[in-house]
């Protein structure tokens, strides 16, 4: 099968790979680039575990062809902590017990980050809506919603 060259930035650093034509971004990130933070829970766009941010927008990497990402800026949960300091969302998920088995967590955090990037002061309804594409089977959604609201509050305190 023909291989296609692609180039993009992942969490700010440049990456170049040859991928199979038709490969998903999820497989390219996990198997080629070695960023296993996006998870494959369904490979059919129904669970949200593979969520990443591409050029500022939340995307399901299992439904995104890798070859369409050339030149893109991709952000994953693996790149959120800066200099060993957790991002407010990571801190809040940790403190609020919003992650039990952890399989849904990187996708949840991406969906929450995409929300807070656009809507720094979300209502509870905004959070529920933003997480509606992400399935968690362990934690229960309440601690997750609370964690996102807590992170939003701590963000605005930092700005103030």
């Amino acid at each position, binding site marked *: 099968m023909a291989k296609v060259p692609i180039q993009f930035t992942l969490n700010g650093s440049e990456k170049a790979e040859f991928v*199979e034509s038709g490969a998903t971004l999820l497989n390219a990130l996990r198997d080629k680039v070695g960023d296993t*933070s996006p998870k494959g829970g369904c490979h059919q766009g129904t669970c949200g575990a593979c969520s990443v941010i591409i050029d500022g927008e939340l995307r399901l990497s299992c439904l995104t062809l890798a070859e369409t990402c050339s030149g893109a800026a991709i952000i994953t949960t693996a790149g959120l902590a800066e200099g060993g300091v957790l991002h407010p969302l990571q801190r809040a998920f*940790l403190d609020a017990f919003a992650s039990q088995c952890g*399989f849904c967590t990187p996708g949840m955090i991406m969906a929450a980050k995409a929300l807070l990037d656009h809507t720094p002061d979300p209502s509870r309804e905004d959070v529920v809506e933003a997480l509606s594409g992400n399935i968690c089977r362990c934690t229960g959604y309440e601690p997750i919603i609370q964690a996102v609201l807590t992170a939003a509050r701590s963000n605005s305190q930092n700005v103030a």
Partner: protein
Amino acid sequence: MELRKSYFADVRKDDLHEIGQPRPRLDSPGHVTGKTAFFADHNFPGMLHLKMVRSPHHHARIRSIDTSEAEKHPGVVRILTARDVPHNVYTILILIQIGPEDETVLADGKVRWRGEAVVAVLAETERAAQEAAAKVKVDYEVLPAVFDMEEALKPGAPLVNEYHGQNYYLYDSGECRKVRFGDVEAGFAQADHILEQSYQSSPIEHAPTETTGCVVAPEGNDRFTCYTNTQAMFFTLDNTSIILQMPGSKLHFVGGTVGGGFGGKVDVIVEPIAILAAKLTGRPVSFVYSREEEMQISSPRAAEKVVIKDGVMKDGRIAARKVTGYTDAGAYSRHSPYGAQKGAGHYPGPYTIPNVWIDTYCVYTNRTPSSAMRGFGVTIGDFALEVQMDKLARLIGMDPLEFRFINAYRDGDMKAHRQPTEGAALIECMQEASRAANWPVAEKYMAMSSYEKEA
């Protein structure tokens, strides 16, 4: 909620400095940074992908298997059938002497449920494995199938599993697990009312976000590392050792990180065949269920049927209880004989009843094999019992909570399976529930205690 210090004050240590305090999970930092390594996060150069050819029939004889077209498919490395598996017939609980071995790793001569694994295809890519699997030709002679437990128990029903020879698990007590306590017929004779009801449940899928699977890497010295999301590490290790006829010292299992299990990952299904594939090809192997397989192939909670007959007195005492429970194991035992047995011990519920008769059957049908799920053998029974309790209370015109106080088990009461009750707390829980739910009961019930009987 306030902890009521008066309960069990003499038997309780009050140095519970962890309870009520938030404690971060040890694995959370890995979860929130995406660093936690699940089995599928292990990747090896040259890794092969395993896909199963599965039975499209509920019950059929296999006349022949033709893999010649599939073998020619580009990227295919090896195809495995029943002949390749050293000890192909197994059962998980054989480790605790619950036999006979009744399930095949790869179907041999017969399939007993729709979705059963027949042929394993190994290829360079997942896609090649999937495409080649579609080219395997299996010639089936379809057999009559049975899906209903009571049908399966009737004489003349199609025989699901020849290793058992009948459509139920044969306990040492016979065709069912039995509990006999007091004289249930005498209890019914003296009762003011009799209520017989039946309750039924469907199979329930755990649907973990991470699907079942494993990644196996040969270590180059006839030893294999298996990264797995099993919930039953040592069961899996020992069963794999039996199936592959390999000493456990050759098997290196790495796990404990499970992306949601809920009991759905305690069966030994993916590891033996993936390790065998790695052994026969000398290459790393990945075998991961698709979401569709997780929903359709992995064991669900068993379907159950519970028939409860109770005799109750006007004053609220239950005089006799007779329960017949049916657990649908599907085509193979897995953990179901154990689940059905748990039900037998549990059916009187947390109530003291002087006359009890219980039969629980573990039944084989041509449905997806069922297995463990949170409280299996007990959860559906509890649903049935508590609905029955409400109905009984209504029948005699009594408050349903007060009705439970009257029948609640208390320390020293003999249970039907002849274990004396110790450390009961039902009365105290119900007192707390009565306050919390603002569901008042008469003062005499609020004065009761699990460990001190009123004179």
